[in-house]
């Protein structure tokens, strides 16, 4: 294993000054974008903020409480539909955004309660979350009939609801945010969620979550009811995904069953794995890198986008175990640790590239017996 030391800090510590500088630079980077980028780029990037929150919701759960939920898209979709349906009924958007957060958290609360208090195993939790989002997708797709109406809004089945209202100014609801303002709101919300999650890790709650990730039984023996903490984390992530869903639906603008789909759920895994699990900035970077890359592949006329992405994912899982950002973050440490790299490379070659001799581990074990 390679341990990058130079830029590491422990998640339970208060962020150092340079972290705040980084966050400020990131904010400045986004806030200045509308001044020098074309409107269609701004429009495209507006979609990424909602996705980034979806990625953060999975990255936080997986990286810091050890809960591997493949179905964060369920709460993403609930947020998108919740916002759309309420805003269309009431004509008011600010409260509807809060409602989307609450709906995501509540959905996660109900599902999480049965999974976590039912003490199902980790792998079943992953499967059930995925099945849950697929069931919701199927359910929503089946609502094309006229009878599926909430208030005055038709759910519209396969086609989704295309009339998602744009956000308006909270203190002056008669004025709608324009494209630039929506971009800024999305960027600021994403950064606030990022800061919030990062600071949560420094609280007792966050520390206990990391304890549960490290060793759940030990944490219980120390007197923590791990179930309560896990449920709270699951609901928090559900709320973040719900917020992401609302922003995403507004940015398209469309509330669509795709939000719950298997393809979307797979995207989330990509973002987090490529960006780097075990960090919070990784999932965000994963969204921007991959979605941008996808767009670029499209313009290059590459037909097999999915295939190329699959190859990228495999490359990352095999070579950069920790994902893009942690790997970059440990570069300074790596330079000091060149021997470890050589070792790692040799190990990699031995494990994955010596075809004829087969996987070395198995051969060794069989070799013991005549």
């Amino acid at each position, binding site marked *: 294993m390679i341990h990058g030391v130079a830029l590491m800090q*422990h998640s*339970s510590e208060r962020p150092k000054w340079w972290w705040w500088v980084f966050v400020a630079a990131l904010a400045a980077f986004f806030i200045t974008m509308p001044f020098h980028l074309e409107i269609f780029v701004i429009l495209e990037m507006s979609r990424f903020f909602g996705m980034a929150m979806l990625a953060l919701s999975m990255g936080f759960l997986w990286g810091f409480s050890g809960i591997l939920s493949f179905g964060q898209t369920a709460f993403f979709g609930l947020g998108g539909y919740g916002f759309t349906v309420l805003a269309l009924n009431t004509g008011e958007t600010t409260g509807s955004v809060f409602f989307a957060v609450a709906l995501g958290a509540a959905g996660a609360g109900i599902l999480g309660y049965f999974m976590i208090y039912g003490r199902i195993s980790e792998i079943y939790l992953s499967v059930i979350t995925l099945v849950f989002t697929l069931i919701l997708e199927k359910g929503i797709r089946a609502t094309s009939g006229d009878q599926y109406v909430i208030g005055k809004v038709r759910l519209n089945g396969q086609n989704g609801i295309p009339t998602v209202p744009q956000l308006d100014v909270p203190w002056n609801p008669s004025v709608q945010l324009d494209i630039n303002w929506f971009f800024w709101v999305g960027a600021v919300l994403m950064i606030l969620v990022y800061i919030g999650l990062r600071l949560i890790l420094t609280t*007792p709650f966050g*520390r*206990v979550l*990391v*304890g549960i*990730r*490290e*060793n759940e*039984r*030990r*944490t*219980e*023996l*120390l*007197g*923590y*009811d*791990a179930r309560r903490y896990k449920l709270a984390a699951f609901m928090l992530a559900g709320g973040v995904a719900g917020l992401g869903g609302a922003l995403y639906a507004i940015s398209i603008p469309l509330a669509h069953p795709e939000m719950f789909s298997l393809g979307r759920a797979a995207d989330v895994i990509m973002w987090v794995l490529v960006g780097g699990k075990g960090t919070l900035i990784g999932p965000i970077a994963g969204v921007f890198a991959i979605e941008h890359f996808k767009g670029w592949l499209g313009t290059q006329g590459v037909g097999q986008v999915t295939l190329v992405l699959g190859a990228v994912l495999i490359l990352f899982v095999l070579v950069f175990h920790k994902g893009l950002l942690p790997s970059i973050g440990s570069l300074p440490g790596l330079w000091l640790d060149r021997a470890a790299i050589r070792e790692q490379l040799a190990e990699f070659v031995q494990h994955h590239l010596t075809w004829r001799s087969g996987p070395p581990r198995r051969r060794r074990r069989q070799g013991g017996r005549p």
Partner: protein
Amino acid sequence: MSEVVREDAVILETRALEKRFGGVSAIAGVDFALRRGELRCLIGPNGAGKSTFFKMLTAQIRPSKGQVLFDGRDISRAHPHEISRLGIGIKNQVPDVYDGITVDENLWLAAHPRHGARAARAKVDDILDRLELRDIRWQLLGALAHGQRQWVEFGMVMALEPKIILLDEPTAGMSIEETNRTAALIREVNRTTTIVVVEHDMQFIRQIADIVTVFHQGRILAEDTMARIQANQAVREVYLGTSGLA
């Protein structure tokens, strides 16, 4: 066992305790009582059932039959998180710590439920001093030597300030010097806390033992002072050739 124990003096007790794994009776009917303030050693050859008994005392596994009473209350079906809240501190045979976080964070997680967020900091400092772990405070636990990890875990148990501490083979894998320090520490902690130690190492048991309970094939074979245990013929036979008890 000749001694009559007054009820209120008993902190931990088992009644007709049994545990079967499939067809194997790991524990086959054990009546056991521990007085407040005692330092009790549980010994016995490998497979005698010590760890199984230990896990039932600490509600980590459920008995097939019988009761475990802590302060007169049956805890055999308690939740793991309730155990430490009752005042029971546990160190299992296999080191059970957080490898991915620092020594400081490990101790803090142990101190927090009992002392609250603020006082936990002071407690961590206190433990770091008592166990002389200050130098490795910010190191990841996974990077430490086996003996040091055992000590950190011991510190975590101390941070709970439990009424009773149960240790399963606390010196496994330790150097002689570390073992001696552990023995001294156990005696010191015993001034305020009841302690149960499961051990293999006879040398170590001689250093700390008060009353010794010998397990054999899931039952209590003998229970007495160390001197008398060493003279006990049945015990000698069980141990013959395996460890230099005499």
